[in-house]
């Protein structure tokens, strides 16, 4: 630790300076801030730092233990990659929002108490929404508003949960809790929304594909992973998580297969990957939690890499639809290569990152005799290979030649993707580097977990080969769903209808009703009574002075009412 400040504030402070810099200076500043924050964080000592007393509560602005350190490190790396990737962007709002967003995520995973966490939780929503709006069109505007509504709803649930907790005499410190009382259920739901639990996942697939090419890279890294962190911290071993996670790991596969917008495919894929993590947290053994956390680490990098590749395609061609792409490998070879590394990583090929992380979750499921869970996860893994491992690179860069020959991605994007690719391979090839950071790693020393034994590698290779064969056969047989321009109905449609309905009801009938009551019941009707009783002169009426008489009438009625009630009950 070099700077004696809560780690989150470094990026936020850096963000505040951005508007005052221009051109190359600004670019250098952004990279400099991200690097400095990373270097600073690497040296942070574990323990509780920066306690402050605020209105009678003790806040822990920074608590760093193994779990928080791992996520903090991950978020710093993700922030640096995304900053490099977006260096070419000339949009102050996006740049400030992106840095502040990364800072908020780091704040959330290093918060030691619920109030501090709540603040960062809301800031996550408030800063990131600008990345959705940055598209500056009607569609991105509406999607941003919906995104904000859902995320603020999560914040309100969290706040309600915290209030219940303090009212029951619970401490403000973030500690594991049992799922059962009102407070824990509210907090669970709040996390669930940000974690994209089934039915609460609509905002992800609604907003992420609509953000700018660079914005999505930031978005995909932080919010859901901060929620995963919090689940691992607060609800390890909560059984409902196993089943929720299974649903998350499996249902997006079907949507991903039929979806045309490749960034939307990746959004579904993200929910699917988070599903694996949620299952791991639900199983709750040290191995499972380590697996979930490790998988989160790997996922942020390979999913970021895939989003970067698709972002580059979108920027160069103006579209990310499978139907409009194909054959891009000829003019974008580097991007193609990096995308393939990402695809291999997410599909868990040996020597690539997900292989060494996801297998921990599967092994933990077997060790706990959750055979059904194991089977479903295996099926989901095959699905991952199909939609993320094959579909994404295949439709974008190969498949039928679309005739498009865009320029290769700009250098800064290539640098970010190259670093991401290297990280994917390093994690996959030298897993002990990551394992050393895991929260329960010391307990594993007795029988250290080894991903590269014969059983694992053989099982995984079989799975992958058969999945590839299956896809190949489906395509040959013409059963594989072709790319089509169509809209697939998902809960996000329901969200939109609900959001629109809510907005309409509040702003049209209810607001009009309020206004009508304000002028009619409170002014005109009593005014008529006054006029009818002959209290008001014609002259006054002409000056609308009679409305004043009406107000006085109401005051009198109230007085009589109070007197009656006080006397009767007094």
């Amino acid at each position: 630790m070099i700077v004696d400040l809560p780690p989150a504030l470094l990026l936020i402070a850096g963000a505040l300076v951005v508007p005052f810099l221009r051109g190359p200076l600004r670019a250098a500043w952004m990279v400099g801030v991200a690097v400095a924050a990373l270097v600073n964080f690497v040296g942070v000592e574990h323990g509780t730092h920066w306690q402050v007393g605020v209105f009678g509560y003790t806040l822990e602005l920074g608590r760093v233990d193994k779990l928080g350190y791992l996520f903090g490190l991950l978020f710093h790396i993700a922030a640096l990659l995304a900053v490099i990737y977006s260096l070419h962007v000339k949009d102050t709002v996006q740049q400030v929002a992106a840095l502040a967003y990364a800072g908020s995520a780091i704040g959330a995973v290093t918060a030691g108490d619920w109030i501090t966490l709540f603040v960062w939780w809301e800031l996550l929503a408030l800063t990131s929404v600008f990345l959705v709006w940055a598209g500056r069109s009607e569609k991105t505007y509406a999607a941003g508003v919906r995104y904000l509504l859902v995320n603020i709803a999560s914040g309100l649930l969290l706040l309600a949960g915290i209030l219940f907790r303090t009212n029951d005499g619970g401490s403000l410190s973030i500690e594991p809790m049992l799922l059962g009382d009102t407070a824990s259920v509210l907090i669970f739901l709040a996390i669930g929304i940000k974690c994209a639990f089934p039915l609460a996942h609509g905002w992800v697939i609604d907003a992420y594909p609509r953000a700018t090419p660079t914005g999505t890279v930031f978005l995909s890294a932080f919010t859901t992973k901060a929620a995963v962190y919090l689940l691992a911290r607060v609800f390890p071993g909560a059984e409902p998580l196993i089943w929720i996670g299974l649903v998350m790991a499996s249902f997006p596969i079907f949507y991903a297969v039929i979806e045309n917008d490749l960034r939307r495919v990746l959004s579904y894929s993200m929910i699917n990957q988070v599903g694996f993590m949620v299952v791991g947290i639900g199983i709750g053994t040290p191995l499972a939690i380590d697996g979930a956390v490790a998988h989160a680490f790997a996922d942020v990098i390979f999913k970021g890499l895939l989003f970067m590749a698709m972002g580059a395609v979108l920027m160069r061609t103006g579209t990310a639809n499978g139907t409009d792409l194909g054959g891009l490998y000829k003019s974008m070879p580097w991007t193609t290569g990096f995308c393939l590394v990402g695809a291999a990583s997410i599909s868990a090929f040996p020597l690539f990152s997900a292989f060494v992380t996801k297998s921990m979750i599967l092994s933990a499921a077997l060790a706990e005799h959750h055979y059904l869970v194991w089977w479903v996860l295996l099926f989901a893994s095959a699905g991952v290979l199909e939609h993320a491992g094959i579909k994404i690179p295949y439709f974008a860069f190969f498949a039928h030649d679309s005739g498009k020959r865009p320029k290769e991605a700009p250098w800064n994007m290539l640098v970010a993707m190259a670093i991401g690719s290297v990280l994917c391979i390093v994690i996959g090839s030298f897993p002990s580097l990551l394992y050393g950071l895991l929260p329960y790693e010391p307990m594993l020393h007795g029988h250290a977990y080894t991903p590269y034994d014969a059983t694992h590698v053989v099982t995984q290779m079989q799975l992958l080969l058969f999945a590839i064969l299956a896809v190949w056969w489906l395509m040959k047989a013409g059963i594989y769903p072709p790319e089509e321009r169509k809209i697939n109905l998902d809960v996000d449609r329901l969200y939109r209808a609900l959001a629109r309905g809510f907005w309409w009801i509040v702003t049209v009938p209810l607001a009009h009703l309020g206004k009508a009551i304000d002028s009619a019941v409170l002014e005109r009707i009593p005014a008529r009574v006054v006029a009818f009783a002959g209290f008001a002169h014609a002259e006054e009426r002409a000056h609308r002075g009679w409305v004043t008489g009406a107000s006085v009438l109401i005051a009198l009625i109230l007085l009589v009412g109070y007197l009656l009630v006080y006397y009767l009950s007094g």
Partner: protein
Amino acid sequence: MIDFVQKHLPILIVVLPLLAGLGALFVGRRHQPWMLALATTWTVFGLTIALLTRVLRDGTVEYAIGGWAPPWGIALRVDAVNAFILLIVAGIAAVTTVFARRSIAAEVPDYRWRFFYSAWLLCFTGLLGITITGDAFNLYVLLEISSLSTYTLIALGMGKDRRALTAAFRYLVLGTVGATFILLGIGHLYMMTGTLNMADLAVRLHDLHDNRVVLTAFAFMTVGLGLKVALFPLHMWLPNAYTYAPSVVTAFLAATATKVGAYMAYRFMFTIFGRTFTEGQFTVDIFLITFSCIAIVFASFVAIRQNHIKRLLAYSSVAQIGYIVLGMGLHNPDGLTGSIVHVFNHAITKGGLFLALGAIVYRLGDVTVGEFQGIGRRMPLTAAAIVVGGLSLVGVPLTAGFISKWYLIQGCIESGRWVVAIVVLGGSVLAVVYVWRLVELAYFTAPSQPEVEVREAPLSLLIPTWLLIGATVWFGIDATFTASTARTAAETLLGVIP
């Protein structure tokens, strides 16, 4: 000198602005009255800080005017409750006076400036006096001083819009009814107890808490105070008064006048009536809670559909007053702390917001939806101030509004009033809707008259605006001072601290 000031601190706070208010008529016709007002408000602000520090350190400060010991003479009595309110009134006056010079120069013709500053200082005197006095009749006199000068201040908006006159007239009628009811209430109390000293009243009323005359006094007070704080359904004077008054007057009144009304309510309900209020067989709190809940929901709905932004924020004030009264109705420590801290937080929030609107009026002449469109790009700093202030109205964390809602909701949960807690949260959602409307107009709509070139407001308007808006962020992040002072004040009122 220092000793003299220390000794006579309470009375100086009232006498200085009173003398300055009269003096403003004679010091000159240009900017001299403003300079006098500026010097006075800042001096008094300093004095109130000194007074609050002393009260928090040593406890209640008593001052007998002319050396006549209470209950015979008029006494000033300052505890944590009114010391805190005094600080709010003086602080807001100091900041808004800075803003007043340019804003008033643009909105009021120059031959009326000295009358304006005279009324301004007299209104300030009245508000401070109401808050500091320990004598019930004295309170009524000062209430009239502040009210009469307020009517004048609102009417001075006529230079821009003649409707200011009807607005002022309407407030005059209703304000007078309110003040008269308060006077009748005080009269009934005097009839029963033979004393006007508040502390003495409290002692003597202790055993008379269910006496019919006292109950009558209580009913008059409830309505009179309801009118003064503009609690639904007695809020009808407020929207027009706020809309047509000169911008800086709106900011000052919104931040102080209803707050002093809330103070009177605290004082009468808790200190003076005490048992009548808290132990009555009937439950007055039900009325307060019901009306405030209706105010929160109803006024927010009305605010959504306003096309004049000042009126929109005026209705928002009616809703926010709901929160303040709600905290009183809960009468538990957390709820009352929430109420008092909201007096402070809402004062800086709404003060800052109305100043920002004043800056727009200064550049564009008015603040209806038309002027507001695309203001985000034309006046970025002013628009940003409105966004931050709006977030505080909603109660977003890191803004002052959050602190108030935190305590209020805790108060609701403490009394097991779940429905009320939901209303408080629901009020925030409605605030999101009307604040969002402002954001949408400012940032996502094109200006209605793009050909007119509009510059950012001058620094003399921006600095006071951002002082208040900055304060909403400051006291949202570090609420130690506001929350602990409000807690002490709440405990004083509830009798935990004598």
